[in-house]
C-alpha cells in the first residue's frame, strides 16, 4: 500500500460549494482543504449534512443540480477543475476519475445489461473497442470474485443481487483504469456479510492498480479498514485530519471523540421475570405472500415477555419484516397462530377488536413515509388518542402535551408544525409518540434507527430505553445492525431465509459456543481496529474459503 505515495494527484484548497433552496443560496461546503497522492486512500467521515458526498463529487469538478462550486481550487494532475471547460471535465470523468455510488441498484440503468454499461465508458472515451471492453469486464468480474464472471455481465441490473451489483459497479469504475475513484458510501446499503466481501474487493483492487481513492462513509469502523488517512467533517467544514491509526487512537477534537463514543451505549438491564407469562407468543407460524408459492417464514416460534426487548436479527430477505406483518395481522399466516396475553389473536387485523389493535403498535424505518406530510403533528399524534381512548377537547390537548414531553420535544414549538419542518430524528420521535399515544403494551420497532445518523440514532435508543422503564413496554426490535442489538436487546432471535436459526438471551447467543451463522454475522461486523478486516479474511481463507450468503 505504500508504494509511490509521493506523487501528488489531487489538491483541493479552500473548496466551497453552495446550494439553492427556499429562494436562497446556502453554503454547503465551506473552505475545505485536502490533498491526495497517487495510490493513497482518504476517508471522509461525518454525519448526514456534513457535505461528504458534495466534496466527493466536487473532486470531479461536478456539482449536483441546484448546487455550484463557488470558491477554492481543485487541481487534478495539473488541471484546475474549477476553471476547466465542460468538455475538459467530461473527458476526465469516467476515464481518469471514476465514481462509485451508494446505491448500485439505483445507479445502474435498468434498461441496459451490466457489461454494456461497463463497456460504454471505454468505448465513449475512445479507449478501446467493445470486444476489448467485454474481455476486460469478464476478467475484472472474475478478479472481484463475482459468480459466473463470463456470463453475469449479460444480465440486467435487476437480475443480480445487491452485493453483486455493488461489486459490478466497482468493476465499472475500474473500466478505464482511472487514477482516482470516489467511493460514496459503497457498502451502506449492504448486509454485513456482503459488506466485508465488497470492502475486501475494493481494497484489493485499489492496491493492485495503485488507484487513489476518496472513501466517503459515516461508518468509522469501515473507514478504519480502508483509509490511509481520515478527515472528519461537520456542517461542511473540516474538523480534523490525520493518519488513520493516530486518528483512531488519539482523536483531538471533542466532536470526533463524541463520534467515536457513540457505540458505547448500553440499555439499562431489565428485570425480566423468566417465569412470568409471555406477553406475546408466536406459535409455529408459516407464511407465504399471496400469489406466490415460496415460504417466506417457516415454522417460526418464539415468545416475548412483558418489559422485555427481543431483537430479531437477520440480513435482508430473511423474513424479519414479514414476521412483523404477521404479528400485526397485515399478512395472515398460512399456519400457526399468535397468542397475546394468552388469547389467540385473529390472524387478519380486520377481525381484531380495537382493544387488541391498541395493545400492539408499530414504528417504521422510514419516518418520512410513515407520517402524512400534510397533517400537523397535533393531528398525527392526536388521532390514536381519539380513536383508541376516545379523548377529546381539553383532555386530549393535555395528553398531547404530555406525550410531546415524553419524547423530549417542546409542545409549544412543535405541535402545530408539519412533518416537513422536522429533522429525521424528530420525525422518528413523532412516530414513537404516535405509537405511545395508543397506550400499548407491545411495540414493534422495524429498523427504526437504520436511516438515522449514529448520534441521532443513539438518542432514539436512549429514548426507547427510558420509555420502556417508565411504561413497562415490551419491544420487538427488528434490525440488521448488530451494534444496535448489542445496545438494546435482552434476548436475540437470529433469522436466516425465513427460519429462526438461533435464539436465546443476548449473552448466550453472542458468546461462544456460537451457532455457525451467528458467528458469521458477528465476525463480519467491522471493528475499529484497522487490521480487523485483513485478519478476518485471512482467518476465513484458512478455514476453507470465504462464505457469503450472497454467492
Amino acid at each position, binding site marked *: 500500500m505504500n508504494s509511490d505515495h509521493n506523487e501528488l494527484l489531487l489538491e483541493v484548497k479552500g473548496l466551497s460549494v453552495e446550494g439553492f433552496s427556499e429562494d436562497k443560496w446556502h453554503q454547503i461546503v465551506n473552505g475545505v482543504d485536502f490533498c491526495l497522492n497517487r495510490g493513497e486512500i482518504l476517508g471522509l467521515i461525518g454525519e448526514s449534512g456534513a457535505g461528504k458526498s458534495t466534496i466527493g463529487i466536487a473532486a470531479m469538478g461536478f456539482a449536483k443540480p441546484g448546487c455550484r462550486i463557488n470558491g477554492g481550487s481543485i487541481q487534478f494532475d495539473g488541471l484546475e477543475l474549477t476553471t476547466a471547460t465542460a468538455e475538459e471535465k467530461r473527458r476526465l470523468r469516467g476515464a481518469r476519475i471514476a465514481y462509485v455510488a451508494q446505491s448500485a441498484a439505483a445507479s*445502474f440503468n*435498468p434498461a441496459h445489461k451490466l457489461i454494456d454499461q461497463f463497456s460504454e465508458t471505454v468505448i465513449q472515451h475512445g479507449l478501446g473497442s467493445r470486444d476489448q471492453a467485454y474481455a476486460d469486464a469478464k476478467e475484472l468480474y472474475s478478479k472481484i470474485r463475482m459468480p459466473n464472471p463470463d456470463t453475469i455481465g449479460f444480465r440486467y441490473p435487476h437480475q443480480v443481487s445487491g452485493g453483486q451489483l455493488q461489486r459490478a459497479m466497482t468493476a465499472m469504475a475500474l473500466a478505464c483504469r482511472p487514477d482516482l475513484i470516489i467511493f460514496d458510501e459503497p457498502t451502506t446499503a449492504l448486509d454485513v456479510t456482503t459488506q466485508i466481501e465488497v470492502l475486501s474487493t475494493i481494497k484489493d483492487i485499489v492496491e493492485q492498480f495503485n488507484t487513489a481513492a476518496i472513501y466517503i462513509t459515516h461508518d468509522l469502523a469501515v473507514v478504519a479498514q480502508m483509509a490511509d488517512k481520515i478527515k472528519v467533517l461537520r456542517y461542511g467544514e473540516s474538523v480534523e485530519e490525520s493518519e488513520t491509526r493516530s486518528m483512531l487512537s488519539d482523536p483531538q477534537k471533542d466532536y470526533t471523540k463524541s463520534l467515536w463514543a457513540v457505540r458505547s451505549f448500553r440499555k439499562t438491564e431489565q428485570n425480566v421475570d423468566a417465569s412470568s407469562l409471555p406477553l406475546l407468543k408466536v406459535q409455529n407460524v408459516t407464511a407465504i405472500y399471496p400469489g406466490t408459492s415460496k415460504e417466506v417464514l417457516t415454522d417460526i416460534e418464539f415468545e416475548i415477555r412483558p418489559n422485555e426487548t427481543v431483537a430479531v436479527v437477520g440480513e435482508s430477505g430473511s423474513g424479519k419484516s414479514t414476521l412483523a406483518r404477521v404479528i400485526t395481522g397485515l399478512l395472515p399466516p398460512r399456519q400457526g397462530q399468535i397468542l397475546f396475553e394468552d388469547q389467540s389473536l385473529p390472524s387478519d387485523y380486520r377481525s381484531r377488536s380495537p382493544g387488541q389493535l391498541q395493545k400492539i403498535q408499530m414504528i417504521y424505518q422510514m419516518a418520512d413515509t410513515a407520517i402524512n406530510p400534510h397533517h400537523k403533528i397535533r393531528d398525527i399524534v392526536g388521532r390514536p388518542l381519539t380513536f383508541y381512548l376516545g379523548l377529546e377537547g381539553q383532555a386530549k390537548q393535555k395528553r398531547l402535551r404530555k406525550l410531546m414531553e415524553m419524547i423530549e420535544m417542546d409542545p409549544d414549538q412543535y405541535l402545530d408544525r408539519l412533518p416537513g419542518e422536522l429533522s429525521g430524528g424528530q420525525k422518528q420521535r413523532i412516530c414513537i409518540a404516535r405509537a405511545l399515544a395508543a397506550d400499548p403494551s407491545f411495540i414493534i420497532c422495524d429498523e427504526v434507527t437504520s436511516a438515522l445518523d449514529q448520534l441521532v440514532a443513539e438518542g432514539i435508543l436512549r429514548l426507547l430505553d427510558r420509555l420502556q422503564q417508565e411504561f413497562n413496554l415490551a419491544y420487538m426490535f427488528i434490525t440488521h445492525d448488530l451494534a444496535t442489538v448489542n445496545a438494546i436487546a435482552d434476548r436475540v432471535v437470529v433469522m436466516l431465509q425465513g427460519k429462526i436459526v438461533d435464539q436465546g438471551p443476548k449473552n448466550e447467543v453472542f458468546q461462544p459456543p456460537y451457532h455457525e451463522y451467528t458467528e458469521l454475522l458477528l465476525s463480519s461486523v467491522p471493528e475499529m481496529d484497522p487490521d480487523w478486516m485483513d485478519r478476518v479474511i485471512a482467518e476465513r481463507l484458512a478455514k476453507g474459503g470465504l462464505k457469503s450468503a450472497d454467492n
Partner: protein
Amino acid sequence: MNNILRMLAQRISLGVLTLFIVSIIIFLAVSMLPGDAAQAILGQAATPDTIEILRKQLGLDLPAHTRYLTWLSSIVQGDFGTSIGNGREISEVIGVRFFNTIFLAAFAACISVPLALVLGILAALYRNSYYDRTVNALTLTSISTPEFFVAYILILYVSVKTGWFPSLANVHADTGFFERLEKTFLPAVTLTLVSVAYMMRMTRAAIINLLSSSYIEMASLKGMKRLRIITHHALPNAWAPIINVIVLNLAYLIVGVVVVEVVFVYPGLGQLLVDAVQRRDMPVVQACCLIFAATYVSLNLIADILSILTNPRLLHPK
C-alpha cells in the same frame, strides 16, 4: 415469458369485454334517439300505416334484445347489414371510408410522431432555454386553437392565396398514391398541428422526470455526452408514458377527425357518420361507432402491450 403471455391474454380479454359493453351502450343510445329509420325514409309520405309496414320489413318491430342479438351475431360474422339510406352493403361503404381515414391518420402520424419526439428530446436537452420556451409556447398555442380555425387559416394562406396545395381533399378509389398525398396534405398538417403538442410535452416531461434519477447522474459522472445521456439513458426508460400519449393521439387522429374531414370535404369515416346521423341511417351509425370504439380499444391495448415490452424488468424476469 409466461408472465408476459398471461398478462397479454388478460389485457386482450379485457379489451374484448370492453368492446362488448360498448356495443350494448351504442345499441341502446341509438335506439333511444327520437324517430327511426322508417320515419326518415318515408319522410313527408309517412302515414301510420306505411310506417307500420316499413317497420315490419326492417325488423324494427321486434323487441330490443332480439334486435341487439341479431345485430351482434351478424357483426361477429363480419356482416354489418345494409344501409337504410341507399340499400348498399355497409361493410362495402365503410371499407373505402375506413381506408381513407386510416390513410389520413397514418399520414398525419408519420409527420407528427417523429416531429414530437425530436422536439421533445431537444426541449429536454436544452431545458429552460429560449428554444424550450419558444417550442412550448408555440405548441401550446396550436393546441388551444380550434382545429377548424387552423384548417381555415391553412386553406386561406397555403391554398387560396398561394395555390400551393388543393383546399379540397376529394380523393376517389382510383386516386394515385402521390396525388392522394398532395390532396390530403393540408388536413394532415392540420391534424399534426393540433396533436403534436401533447406528444412533445409528454416526451419532454417523461425525460426530464428521469433526469434527476441516480443512473442519469452516474452517466454524467462517467463522462457521457448530454445527447447520449438523453437518448441512451433516459429515453429507453421513458418509453411507457410516451407510448401511451402517442397512442392516445393516434386514436384521436382516427376517431376525432370529424371536423377536419368536414372542412376539407374528405370522404372519411367521420363524414360518413355525420351524414348517416342526418339521414337516420341507424345501421351505419352503429357500425361507425363500433369501429371507432374498436379502434380506441385496440390502440390502447397496443399501448399497454408496448409499455410492458419496453420494461426490462418484465421482459427479462429474474
